[in-house]
Every structure is written in structure tokens, then in C-alpha cells.
């Protein structure tokens, strides 16, 4: 059965320009698909370009940056080609977004009710009365007690967890088809994180939204996502169904990431870290971005950038090991799979 694809990102490239006009390719070849009603995780470490990818979808990148190429097909409309007015009518309406820092993501000088009402007014033309009813409904939906009093409060009167709930209520105001959550729980304590993740999961089921979950935490990915795109150095290096990714990771970076994660549910004597450091965004390796840190890298990897190859099962991997051109140890592919099983 072919699933309906709500968001199809193809070879997205987003660049920034520093004061000297030097181009920084923050996102350089990102492709993924999100089937309707599912959750896609975008996972990567700092500087991998995962947040810029999210901001690019809604065209919210800073003034000194621009989308340099690629397509973002949302229900078959290319968002990169829309006028400023058209993309505005999608923001907060069809696609909405929540951010990492609930403490600073709400405007301190307006009540939370007023901030939620703004979205209702511009996208749905609600008047104050209708707005109030809907705001109370939304606050109840995200589990905020006594919503009638809460809507009159200012952000500083709420805790971090409560503020993130408000952000979610605001994002849900116009029944979005797609919710982009950019590290929504990173700034929160674990017990609060558990509350928020559970909330997002249950809301998704209830409202049938599609979700993009951006995170650095593989635990969050495992618990919330159906599909995963692993990013490294501004590129997607692996795209997989979530169970496959944890059971059978293909890209050496994904393997390294899983092996370097200390887990609280099992004992590991020695972690196997990835050697070396994350490459600087201003000075990316010419070939495979991961080659300098990859235990299997060959001459080919260092000189030529592999393409993101699609396999029959729909998964994609950007690595020479899985191509016909592979010139290294043929056993690597097999061993790689054994390491984690």
C-alpha cells in the first residue's frame, strides 16, 4: 500500500552568508518524506543542520540566510516558491512549530490568551468571544488546569513545562496538518519531558496530525517516531523506518551514535565513541562528510561525496559501503550489521 506523503523534501540546501559574504552551507542536501499522520524524527548533533532544516520548511531562517536550492513539497505545493503572503497563510495554520526554549519563546508582555488569540484571528477570523471559547478548549486539550484564569496570565507566571504546553496549544490553534517540534523537551527536566512527549503523542493520535520531531536524543526518537532521518554535517546520511534504524543501522555514523550513547536501562562497560571532532561548518570535508571520523573510510570516501541512495525497502543511506563502487573490505558491510545486533 502506498502511503500518502504530506511532506516531501528534496535535496534542500540552505546557506548563510557571514559579514565577509562567505557562504556557509548549513543545510546541504537534505531529502526525506513524511507520510500523512506519521512522525518523522530528524536526529543529529549540534551543527548537523537539523534545526535549520526545520526553519527552512516554514521559511523562518534569519535574514542573512536563504534557501539556495531544492524543493519542499507540502501537499504537492512547493513551499520554496510561494509568495511571502502565501507562506504566511500557511504558518501557524497548516503547519505550525514549537521550539526548544519555552522560557523565551513566548512574548513576556502579553497574556498567553492574547498570544493564542492572534493565530485564531488572522487565520480563522474569530472574534473575541469565539476566540475565548477556543482558547479555553485548547488549554484544556493540552492539560492546563483552570484555563479561564490561566489565559489571563503572563508567561513569567508559568513554569517551563506549562509554557511548553501553552506553545503547543498555540501551535494547535488552527488544527495544523503538520506540527514541527524543534527539540521541544531539551530544556525540560525528564519528568516534565515525559509529560510533554506523552501529550504530543496523544494529541497526534487524537487529531491525526503529522509531526516532525527534531532532537539529538535517540531515546526520544525511539519513543515517538515512525521514521527517522539521521543528519550529519548538513546532510541526511540515513533515512529509515524507526525499528529498522535501531535494529539494523546502516551508516557508520548512525552505528557510532548508537554505540556512544550511555544507556540507563542496560550496563555497558566501555562506550565506543566516534573518534575525532565534528567538522567545522565553514570547512567541510570534500568527500563524505563523515570520512575523517569513519573507521572504514577509504580513498574513495575521502575524495568523493556519496549520494543518498534509495533501497527497495524505502530506506536511504549516503555511504559508499552500500554501493557497487565500494573499494574497501567487502566484509565491512556484514560486520557493521553484526555490531549492533
Amino acid at each position, binding site marked *: 500500500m502506498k502511503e500518502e506523503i504530506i511532506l516531501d523534501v528534496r535535496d534542500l540546501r540552505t546557506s548563510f552568508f557571514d559579514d565577509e559574504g562567505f557562504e556557509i552551507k548549513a543545510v546541504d542536501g537534505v531529502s526525506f518524506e513524511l507520510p500523512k499522520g506519521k512522525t518523522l524524527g530528524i536526529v543529529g548533533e549540534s551543527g548537523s543542520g537539523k534545526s535549520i532544516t526545520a526553519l527552512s520548511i516554514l521559511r523562518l531562517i534569519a535574514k542573512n540566510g536563504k534557501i539556495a536550492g531544492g524543493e519542499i513539497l507540502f501537499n504537492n505545493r512547493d513551499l520554496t516558491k510561494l509568495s511571502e503572503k502565501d507562506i504566511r497563510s*500557511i*504558518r*501557524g495554520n497548516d503547519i*505550525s512549530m514549537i521550539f526548544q526554549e519555552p522560557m523565551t519563546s513566548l*512574548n513576556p*508582555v502579553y497574556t498567553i490568551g492574547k498570544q493564542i488569540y492572534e493565530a485564531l484571528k488572522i487565520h480563522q477570523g474569530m472574534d473575541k468571544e469565539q476566540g475565548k471559547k477556543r482558547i479555553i478548549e485548547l488549554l484544556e486539550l493540552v492539560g492546563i488546569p483552570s484555563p479561564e484564569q490561566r489565559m489571563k496570565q503572563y508567561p513569567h507566571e508559568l513554569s517551563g513545562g506549562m509554557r511548553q504546553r501553552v506553545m503547543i496549544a498555540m501551535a494547535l490553534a488552527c488544527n495544523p496538518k503538520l506540527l514541527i517540534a524543534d527539540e521541544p523537551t531539551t530544556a525540560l527536566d525528564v519528568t516534565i519531558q515525559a509529560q510533554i512527549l506523552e501529550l504530543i503523542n496523544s494529541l497526534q493520535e487524537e487529531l491525526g496530525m503529522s509531526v516532525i520531531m527534531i532532537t539529538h536524543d535517540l531515546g526520544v526518537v525511539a519513543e515517538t517516531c515512525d521514521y527517522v532521518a539521521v543528519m550529519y554535517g548538513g546532510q541526511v546520511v540515513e533515512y529509515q523506518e524507526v525499528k529498522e534504524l535501531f535494529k539494523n543501522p546502516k551508516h557508520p555514523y548512525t552505528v557510532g551514535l548508537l554505540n556512544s550513547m550511555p544507556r540507563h536501562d542496560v550496563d555497558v562497560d566501555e562506550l565506543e565513541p566516534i573518534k575525532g571532532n565534528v567538522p567545522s561548518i565553514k570547512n567541510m570535508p570534500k568527500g563524505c562528510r563523515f570520512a575523517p571520523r569513519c573507521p572504514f573510510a577509504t580513498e574513495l570516501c575521502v575524495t568523493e561525496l556519496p549520494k543518498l541512495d534509495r533501497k527497495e525497502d524505502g530506506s536511504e543511506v549516503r555511504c559508499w559501503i552500500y554501493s557497487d563502487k565500494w573499494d574497501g573490505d567487502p566484509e565491512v558491510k556484514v560486520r557493521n550489521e553484526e555490531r549492533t545486533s
Partner: protein
Amino acid sequence: MLKFIIRRLLQLIPVLLGVTIIVFSLMHLTPGNPAHIIAGENAPPETVAQIEKRLGLDEPIPVQFYHFVKDAVMLDFGNSWRTSLPVTTELWPRFWVTFELAVYSMIFSIVVGMAAGIISAVRQYSWADVTVMLVALFGLSMPNFWLGLMLMQWFSINLGWLPPTGWGSPEQIILPVITLGTSGAAVIARMTRSSMLDVISQDYIRTARAKGLKERVITYRHALKNALIPIVTVIGLQFGGLLAGAVLTESVFAINGMGKLIVDRILARDFPVVQAGILVIAVVFVFINLLVDISYKFLNKRIDMD
């Protein structure tokens, strides 16, 4: 809120008392006996003593101070030593002229400064931004008497568009207000720009954008209100400076304001008028600061009411 205002008003009492002490002692520490000056250089000692007694100058300083404060509270500053008219009669009309000049200049500074600052911030690094910042730097570094003279030269003498002196008619108001308001406008423009730039980079502005709001709404509703706090602080400080700057502006444009009055009477050792004038300025300054503090509360709900 009311509790806050009352508490701030109570806190003003020691401040005003301090100002009064300073004003009073400064005048009494300056050399030269006013009785001598009033009586004339060759007056006999009896006349001088008589004048001293009439003015209360023969009493100990603390007693003089006590009388001064007691009367000042009743808005009675005595009579001018120079003209013998009640100080209030002399001061009030002059005070209103200066107050008008200051308020108009302030409005000019705020409107021009904030508009320029917002444009600058929203179009950072554009030619508009560069121009505004250059003009602001220019306006800031130019002494206002010089600016006044230049404006007078151009618009009054060369072009003949506006009257060079006086105060009252709308035409007469324009040049002094620009003269006095320019440096304030420059300071406010710079503060508005940096404050707006700071706010524009905040997370909640991104949230507002993600909501689908128009840039205009984001700038004026979401950014400006948050950016106002430092701007209001600067405006409050500017007003104090304006009262001082008014003295020079009044001299340049021959306006009979309080600044000019105080300068004249300092030279004449007319203590009551000078003391009252400075006290009035200090009180206005202190109250403007109170207004600034109160407006913080409205702008920023995060500052605790107590």
C-alpha cells in the same frame, strides 16, 4: 499599583530634602554678601545691616534653612531681592515658557528619534540605516547653541522663512524646538535601534513569525513594546538634560524662559529666585523619573509590584 506609587512618592521626600540642602548651601557658600550687592558698593554699614535683618540673613544658617523649607512647602519663596516682586510671580510665566519649549522638544525628540530608530533596526545595514546613524552621530556631537545659530543663519537670515527670535507663535517655536530636540532625537534613535535589534533576535519574535503574523504587526506589536523599556529610560534622562539645554537655547533665540532668568539672577545674587528656580527644575526632574518608573510597570509586567 497604587501602593507602589504611594511608596515611590514617599521615597521622594528624602530626595527633595537633599536637593533643597544642596541648593541652599551652594548659594550660601558662594562668596559675596548679597546685602552688599543690594545696598550698593558704597552703602554705609547700617544700611547693610538693616537689609540683612530684613532678609533674615543675620540669623544662623540652620534657622534660615528652616524658614526656607517651611515657606517652600507652601510655595512661598519670598520676594526677589532684585525686583522685590514675589518670586512666584516672577517665576511662573517664565517657567511655563521653558516647560513648553521642553515638552515640544521632547515630543520632537521622541517622534523623530523613535521613527528613525525603528527604520534603522528593521532595515539593518541598509542605506537608510547608515544614513540615520550618521545623522544621529552628527546630531549628537553638535553643541546645541551652534546648531541654533546655524539654523537661525539659514532659515531666518538667508532664507527668511522663520523668525530668528522670540517665543509664542508657531513659526517662532520651530527653530528652538529643533535646536533643543536634536540631540535627544539622536540619543533616542540610537537607543531605539539597539533595543529593537536586541528584541528582534529574541525567540518570541520567531514564534510570532511562525504564527503567520505580518512583519508590520511583529515590529509594532511584538517587538516595540518589549523594546520600549530602555527607550523610556533614555527619554526620562533626556528630559532632565533638556531643562539644562533650554538655558542655552533660550539665550540663542532670546526667549524669556526660566533658564535665562536663572542665569541673570545668579549674576545678580538674587538668591530667592535662583533657589526657587533650581528647586522647581529638580522637582520636575524627580517627577519625570517617577513617571518613567510607573510606565515601566505598565510596559513590563515582570517587574514585581512590591
